[in-house]
């Protein structure tokens, strides 16, 4: 009992000593408070590093599968014309979180005193904002422009869309700022002045042609910007075309290399076996995933090796596989599997297989070595110099200022790489290709019509499966192109066919009974299930239902229902 006061004192002391005010103050150890950041050039660098994942990866090489270039196993909504209005706010491309991050940076970075760093990283942030908004305008047309971080209570959350003019001018201001402020330096995996020039050329060509073909005022200035930006890139001498491997291999080699270099490639997404992989190899080879097939009208668009048009060749439409692959633009068998197709890094020819491909024309552009058919790590090209050459020619042609000399420093460089005869402007204009003419109904019948069609042919072939085709159709107002038949291989009859001319039949076409297939056949086609256009003969017709395009609405994407409900000033795109 006598100890009681003593003990109580001990307990009381302990009690008090623990009750310090700071006990519940536990500032984080692995994060930094924003107010203590943005002090050094390094701070700006790591803050802009967060933006790079806005850039695409493998999507670059899969976007064409939702266009008229590629027929997929499961037809896509965009081609079928069955896109639907998304429900959830922020879905269907209407996502704005990246913009908030960029604007947060732009609101804070000027605290740094290092002027060079401010220019460089301010320029990079503006590049990304231009990239962000370009994507929004492409998909939605008019969009609200925000150059600040929005508070939850900000009235601007509920504003109407800004005009296309205002947004595009702001985008051009951003990209011009980037070009002026990022120093000239070549870097493969970083945004540079050249990347900004390339993006500017792409944006300006898109906007210029979009306005021209959709009858929106002001197209010429954008086309001039496109020509100027691509010319600046050409004149810089920083890039040239990749030619290692020569005419028969350089083009294919360029895309499936494990490590890109900055010869032709302006910006690449780097992948690494140990660190970051993608599944393109899997998508291109798995029978249930890939089943990609190149559309026949693209195959037909490749010129003959002598520069003449394949579609002018008599009987071209009923030519068998082996024959049609002979003496063509070398890019054809570097894009689709030719008769002597081998996988990169292997010498043994692959057995002919039509199982994994809808049209029979298997894609081999950017197909990696076999060990990457599950997890791939070859780099993906986001921007390359060839596009600048194509933009230059197209912008000039659309402006009406194109000269043969312009073609010689642009498109004909691409032809040189694959040993193809040069494109001659006057020949082209004198005899516009009826096959291409039928594809693109909206090209004005002016003096440049022929060469514009040839530039489009060249662009579609050179940039096949690099994610630009859908945008091209949109800006040319050629959405109806997807309604044209998307066919495959031609078979004159049922029976056995030798695809690689080695004397052994490879493909057996039958109407339900495969028992007559000769030994050595590696692919069976049952016409009851994989139909031909004329029953027991004709082209493979995987997508007989065909595409559909509604001119009155399909040039834009719909805005999610929830966003419309939350902001009464926001209106849906027409007819959605």
């Amino acid at each position, binding site marked *: 009992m006598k100890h009681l006061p003593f003990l109580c004192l001990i*307990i009381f002391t302990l009690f008090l000593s623990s009750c310090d005010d700071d006990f519940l103050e536990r500032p984080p150890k692995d994060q930094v408070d924003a107010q203590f950041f943005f002090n050094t050039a390094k701070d700006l660098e790591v803050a802009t590093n967060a933006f790079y994942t806005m850039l695409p990866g493998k999507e670059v090489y899969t976007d064409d599968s939702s266009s008229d270039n590629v027929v997929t196993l499961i037809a896509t909504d965009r081609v079928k014309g069955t896109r639907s209005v998304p429900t959830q706010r922020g879905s269907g491309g209407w996502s704005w979180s990246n913009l908030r991050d960029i604007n947060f940076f732009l609101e804070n970075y000027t605290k740094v005193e290092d002027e060079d760093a401010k220019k460089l990283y301010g320029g990079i942030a503006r590049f990304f904002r231009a990239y962000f908004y370009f994507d929004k305008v492409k998909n939605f047309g008019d969009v609200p422009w925000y150059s600040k971080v929005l508070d939850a209570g900000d009235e601007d959350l509920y504003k109407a869309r800004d005009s296309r003019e205002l947004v595009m001018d702001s985008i051009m201001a951003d990209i011009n700022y980037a070009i002026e402020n990022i120093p000239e330096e070549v870097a493969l995996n970083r945004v540079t002045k050249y990347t900004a020039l390339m993006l500017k050329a792409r944006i300006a060509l898109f906007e210029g042609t979009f306005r021209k073909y959709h009858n929106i005022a002001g197209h010429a200035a954008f086309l001039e910007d496109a020509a100027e930006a691509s010319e600046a890139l050409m004149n810089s001498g920083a890039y040239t075309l990749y030619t290692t491997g020569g005419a028969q291999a350089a083009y294919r080699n360029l895309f499936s290399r494990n490590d890109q270099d900055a010869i032709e490639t302006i910006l690449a997404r780097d992948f690494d076996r140990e660190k970051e992989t993608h599944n393109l190899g899997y998508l291109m080879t798995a029978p249930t995933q890939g089943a990609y097939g190149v559309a026949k009208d693209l195959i037909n668009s490749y010129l003959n090796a002598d520069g003449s048009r394949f579609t002018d060749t008599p009987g071209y439409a009923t030519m068998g596989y082996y024959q049609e692959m002979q003496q063509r633009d070398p890019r054809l068998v570097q894009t689709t599997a030719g008769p002597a197709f081998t996988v990169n890094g292997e010498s043994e020819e692959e057995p002919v297989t039509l199982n994994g491909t809808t049209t029979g024309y298997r894609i081999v552009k950017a197909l990696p070595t076999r060990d990457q058919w599950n997890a791939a790590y070859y780099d993906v090209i986001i921007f390359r110099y060839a596009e600048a050459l194509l933009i230059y020619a197209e912008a000039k042609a659309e402006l009406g200022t194109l000269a043969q000399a312009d073609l010689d420093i642009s498109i004909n460089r691409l032809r040189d790489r694959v040993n193809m005869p040069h494109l001659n402007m006057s020949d082209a204009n004198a005899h516009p290709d009826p096959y291409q003419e039928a594809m693109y109904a909206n090209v004005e019948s002016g003096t440049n019509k022929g060469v514009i069609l040839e530039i489009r042919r060249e662009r579609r072939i050179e940039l096949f499966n690099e994610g630009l085709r859908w945008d091209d159709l949109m800006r040319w107002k050629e959405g109806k192109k997807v309604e044209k038949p998307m066919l495959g291989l031609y078979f004159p009859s049922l029976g056995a066919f030798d695809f690689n001319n080695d004397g052994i039949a490879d493909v057996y076409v039958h109407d339900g009974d495969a028992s007559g297939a000769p030994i050595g056949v590696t692919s069976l086609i049952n016409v*009851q299930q994989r139909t031909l256009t004329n029953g027991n003969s004709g082209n493979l017709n995987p997508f007989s239902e065909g595409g559909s395009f509604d001119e009155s609405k399909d040039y834009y994407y719909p805005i999610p229902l929830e966003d419309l409900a939350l902001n009464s000033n926001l209106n849906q795109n027409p007819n959605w």
Partner: protein
Amino acid sequence: MRSKNLQKICLFIGFVLALQSYAQNAQVVGEIKDQEQQPIPGVTVLIKGTQKGTISDFDGKFTLVLPDAENDVLVFSFIGYKSQEVKVASQTNLQIVLEEDSESLEEVVIVGYGTQKKENLTGATSQIEAKDIALRPSADISTALQGLLPGLNIQVNSGDPSATPDINIRGFNSINGGSPLVLVDGIVGDITRVNPQDIKSVTVLKDAASAAIYGARGAFGVILITTKTGASGEMQVSYTNNFAWTTTTTRTDYISDPYVYGKTIDAAIFGYNGTSFTGYNDNDWETIQGVANGTIEPFHQEQPNGTNKFFYKTDWYEHLFKKWQPSQNHNISISGGSDKLHGYLSGRVYNRETINNVQDGELERNNLKTTLTFKPNTWLELSNNVLFNREQSKEYGGYRSGYGGIWSTTTWYDLAAFYPSEIDGIPADIGRSGNGGQGGHAAMAAAGNYRAFNTEEFTNTFRVKVTPTKDLELNFDYSNRITNTANSYRLNEFEYISSSRLNLQTAGLNRLTEYRWRNYYKAMNVFGSYTKQVADNHNFKLLLGYNQEDYEEDNVLAEQGGLLIRDESNLSFGTELLRADGSAQLWAVQGFFGRFNYDYKNKYLLEVNARYDGSSRFPEDSRWGFFPSISAGWQLNKEEFWDPLSATVNTVKLRASYGELGNQSIGVNTFQSLMGMGQSSWLDGGDRLNYVSAPGPLPRTVSWETTKSLDFGIDLGFFKNRLNASFDWYEKNVEGMYLPGTPLPAVFGASEPKENLASLRNRGFELSLNYRNNFSLGGSPLSLSASATLSNFKGIITKYENPEGLMSSYWEGQELGVIYGYHIDGQFQSDEEALAYQNSFANPSSDLSQVYRYILNIVQNSEWNKLRAGDIKYVDTDGDGKIDKGNYTLDDHGDLQPIGNAMPKFPFGFNINAAWKGIDLSIAGAGVGKQNWYPTGDIYWGPYQRPYLTLVRKDLVDQAWTSDSPGQYPQIYRGYSSLGAGRSLYEMNDHYLQNIGYLRIKNLTLGYTIPEKLTAKFNIDRLRFYVSGENILTWRFGDLTKYVDPEQAGSAINYSSPGSAVGRANLRSYPMGKTWSMGLNISL
């Protein structure tokens, strides 16, 4: 293996019978009465040191034959009375008076920071004593508690011995999730790390009144685990072991006939892309049939183009998985000491093999506990408790480009029955259509790819208890816990034969990843209580205290590539640094608490609790919260007017409680504008970019979620407490759930700032029954106890900011777990019927695109790109000419309607213990009355999920539609085109919705204790042998396939995350285990 076990059981029973077969003659009779001279029926009369004895009859009389009347001592025992020992000597007629045992009336229940007499409890509390669970040789206490305590829901999600079950008290408590506070001897602990043999009791505090003393930590209920501390007296040593063999609870005889497998896989892939997987022609099919029935030896055959065709017969399940997983458990404990110093020491070793048959993985757990208590004098008690736990596990896996466990790299990938598992002793993985496989089993066989997890936890608690006067007790305790976790992933290259060209290839990565976590947790409690009785009948008790805790976590990650030595696993061998990163977390809480108890003659009971809590998770101005509670009880049976009834109903207590609790389970530092660091997936020249991300928007307010809880209960005791019943009804309102605020337009660019704004109401009931009695059976007493529990709860969202009624979110009035789905009108019975249905829609490919998405859009197979016989028929319930979800809002949800509920309804349990002549038997069962599950995952859907799945259940293929038997599923041809969002089998519908309710015998244990007289010669106090079975029998209330365990099917529901309520368990995980075991208990 199974028959071996049976043999052992038979031997054991024979042994028991042999021991019973000797006896002598000398008869004694007697009469047993209570202090009021009333006869007591049912008293156990045992001859000391034996299991021989009898039970008193209705008049309290008994007759017994004694083997050795001179020396025999009789032991009289009955519930509620003090046991009595009587030396018989020459007496032949005994008159026994048993005294009422005030101790047992004063049965004590553990409550927060103290104990309470059971009869004075006013809150909703359940407690279970070690003896009621000790018979079960469970390696993990949480599984042993399943079904035993009403309102305590335990969801075992897999058979993985290292997995932690989900534990929940009284339903989902917050949209933000959260789990009960588990306190081991007053210190926050991990329930799975407690050695079950150390446990003395488990108490569950369910209502706010009982949990309020834990304030902000008790919102999800509290589980108090009390462990043994030893007692003064003779030294006691006890040793327990257990040898067990675990197998799966489900069927595992997947299709291994290569012909059947080949036909199935070919059909599944053909319907999707019109190609053949096997590439077999008619001759080949004949050959593979020969291989299947054993007339042809398995072989492969080279084709002209250098590829091969394969004709093998491989049972991949058998190749990959063990039939029996052995485990063993050894536990030793020592206790004893003097009044001044006593202690308890225990140690356990538990190890188990994993299910991996290609390469043995292992799990090992070690526990060590030491408690020492010093009592230097009458008013001071000092004690120190040391707990050390260690858990190690190693699991083999790997595939061609990384680490994947046995479930991902083998079962998911195309190991076809007609492919070989090896060629010339080298593992083979031919792969999909001969394109090369993942090599999962080859990587395991090479043993170079594994993950090794290691955790060591050290906890020290020092306590002081001072009792200056009889009425005053002061306590102080201080605990320190250090937890170190080291997880490594080692990848290595390996060789295997792959593709139809039989390439011998080297695949895999050479890499080592090391994760290290170092956690420090410190807790201090200071509390004291004062008891006072005034004027004999007024009893007061006051408790006051203070608590503080703080936590610090520090994580390090390092990864090296290109290790120089294959068999070593150390970063020092790396040649390429791939990653190095770190992170940290800190938090602290502080609280003041008090409890006031008052009762008048133990009749009228009142308790008030309060706690004032602060947490570092909140900004300074909203950091502190006050959480009060009040509860009251009335013991009717102590009223005079009850006396006439007291012979039958001897206990009646009414209870009521109301209280408020807080929940601080939100992330740390959410109120600061913080920029997180990270390493990007964007590489620059092969190196990841380091980045810092923009801070998220700050919440408008951050403060506690509050749980207001109301509870009414009644406790009844019948026939001198032989039968007890307890019933509770409760309502819990969780208010101010911390969630994203009012929806903002997407241009905001971030999730809506969080606010404390949503509410949830849970209502439920709990019922428990207990029965204990003794009977006479075959001249020996049979003691029997049985208990049963039943509960149910229903959660409703009562407040939620969702003005648009978006069903992708929560909404007001939503019952948690409700499943919205489509109505199906059976299957099409002919192609014509199917086509007519399809053509009844104006534009089938868009009108039906939300449910038949792939079927109608396949481009390469014109035979199958339309609806056909066997496909399920979606009903256009709203008649708008489309099958869809409308706007997926409450106003317009198209054809969706509520079709079921994914919450477990009416969970129940029962437990029966019987002892007779040294034989003890215990049966524990648990189950769920009803629960809906929409089937998901490859085990269930087989080729519909993925056409080239390794494991395909037989009863699926048998039930696919054919013109002869309509079955239940579409034709196998539907393969790949039917699962996945927007596809016919994936969209939830009432055709495939299952009731996964079940009743399961969780445990059956049969033991025999050798009579003490025999064992005493060897100085053994007690020697018991037992055999036991866990999960041995299961009844399914629905018609769920035997390949899926009903308990595991419910595992999509994570009690800590109610958003998962309609989640889908893919079951691609460790199958539930059924365990047979045997062992012994020795006490010295």
